[in-house]
C-alpha cells in the first residue's frame, strides 16, 4: 500500500473474485471509516473480476461518498475495463489512466494551498482590487 499525502492508493488483486474481494474489503474497510477518505484503486493487475468484485468496488465507493470522501479508479487493465462496461458500472466511477493522475485529481483545486488572507476567488480571478483601481 502506498500513501501520497492524504490520498491512499491501493492495488486491486489480480483475481478480484469471491474470496479475494472479501479479503480486499477487510483491508480497505478501515481506511474508508476515516473522515473524508480519499482513495485510489489501482487496477492494472486485475485479470479476472466477477460480480462480487464489482459489488466490492461499489460498496467502497458508497462508503467513501457517505463520509464526504471519494474513491477513484486508475490504470484499468483491459479485462477490468470490459467487465465494468459490460455491467454498466464504468460510468459510476471516475477513471484515470494512471494512479498519479488520479491522486492529482483530488488536488485539482488546491484550496488548502491558498493563503488565508486572500479571498478564495483570487486564485481564479486575480486581484479584483487592482482591477477596480485600473478601471
Amino acid at each position, binding site marked *: 500500500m502506498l500513501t501520497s499525502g492524504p490520498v491512499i492508493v491501493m492495488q486491486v488483486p489480480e483475481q478480484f473474485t469471491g474470496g479475494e474481494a472479501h479479503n480486499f474489503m477487510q483491508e480497505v474497510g478501515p481506511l474508508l471509516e476515516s473522515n473524508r477518505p480519499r482513495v485510489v484503486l489501482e487496477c492494472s493487475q486485475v485479470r*479476472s473480476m466477477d460480480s462480487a468484485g464489482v459489488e466490492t468496488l461499489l460498496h467502497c465507493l458508497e462508503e467513501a461518498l457517505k463520509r464526504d470522501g471519494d474513491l477513484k479508479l486508475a490504470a484499468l487493465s483491459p479485462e477490468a475495463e*470490459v467487465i465494468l*462496461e*459490460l455491467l*454498466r458500472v464504468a460510468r459510476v466511477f471516475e477513471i484515470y489512466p494512471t494512479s498519479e493522475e488520479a491522486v492529482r485529481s483530488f488536488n485539482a483545486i488546491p484550496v488548502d494551498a491558498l493563503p488565508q488572507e486572500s479571498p478564495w476567488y483570487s486564485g481564479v480571478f486575480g486581484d479584483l482590487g487592482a482591477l477596480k483601481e485600473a478601471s
Partner: protein
Amino acid sequence: MPGAIVIAGRESREESSTRSNFPLSTKPRRRFLAGVELLGQSVFGRLVQKLEDAAFDHLSIFVESSLAPDFDDAVSDVDGYATTDVWRGAERSLIEAREAGIDCVLLVRAGAYVEFDPSDLIQLHRESGNFITRACDEHGPLDLWAIHPDIVDESRILSATLYGAGEPYYRVPGYVNRLQNLRDLRLLVADGLSSRCGFRPRGFEVRPGVWMAHGADVGRGARVVAPAFVGSDAKVSEQCLITRCSNIERNCKIDYGTVVEDSSVLTGTYMGIGLDLCHSIADGNCLLNLNREVMLQIEDPVVMRQMRNNKPRAEGYRQLPSNFRRGEAVLSVADNS
C-alpha cells in the same frame, strides 16, 4: 460429370504460424469458425448447400473427428462424416471418382467464405487442360481447387500436391472473407446484414433490415434496430436494445434491459439483466471484446452462461440428402443419378 469433395480439418501448426493478422495469436482458437452458426447457418452448411444445389454427381464430406462437435449447427448428423484424416478420405473419394469416370472434382477445404460459381471454375479448369486449377483472390490463393482425379498418386501426399501447385489460378470474382479470426467473423455478419455480400440471414425480413427466424420472440418494449438478426427460438426480453449489425443466434436469451450493440451472440448463450455488450462476441460464458482484444471467461452464471436447454433445430431443418451412403465412417458419397 463433375464431383465435389468438402473437407473440414484444423490447420496445422505451420499453417497457422503464417497468419500475420490473427489478433488472438497468443490464445488458442476455441472453435472452428466455418462451423459456427451465423445469421442462421454456418459457412460450412452454406457451402454444402451450395454444392448440393449445383447438382454435383458425387458429393463427399469429411470432417475431422475433433471438429465434429462444432458442426452440430452446420449439417445434421455430421458424425456420419467424421474421420481422423480428412485428406486420406479425400484421396479415397478421388480414386472412387476416377473409377466412376469423373473427369473433374471440385475440392473445397472449409474455412473461408467464398462466393463463386462452381460451373465457372470447372469450365476454366477444363479449358486449361491442367490437372489442378486453384482459386485465388487479390490477397492470394484460396483452399478451393478443381482437379482431375488422375492426380492421386500413392507415392505423393494429396495435400502437398495441391498446396504445391502453381498457376493457373481461377480468380474468384465475388466476395471473399477468409475467416481467419474472430474479427473476420464479425465483419462477415456485418457485411451479410448490410447486403454487401450474399451471406444472407436465414429467416424473414420483418422490417427493412430486421431479420427474424422461426420462433424468435421479442418482448414488449424491446427494440431491434436495423440491421439486426434474431435467430430461431431466441428470446429478446423487455426493454432490450439490439442494434448496429448485431446478431442473436438460435436459442439465445437476452434478458431484461440488456443492450447488444455491434456484437454477435452465438447459439445457446444467455446474457443477463441490464448488461451493455458492445463490439464483442459472446459464446456461452466466453466473451471476446474486439476493441480491446480481450477474451474473458465469465464465471458468473447470472451474467453470462451457456443455456442448458440448447434445443436442437426445429423440425424441417435441412437434412443432407437421404441418398448419402454412410457405409464407411471415412467415406460418404452421394450419387444423385
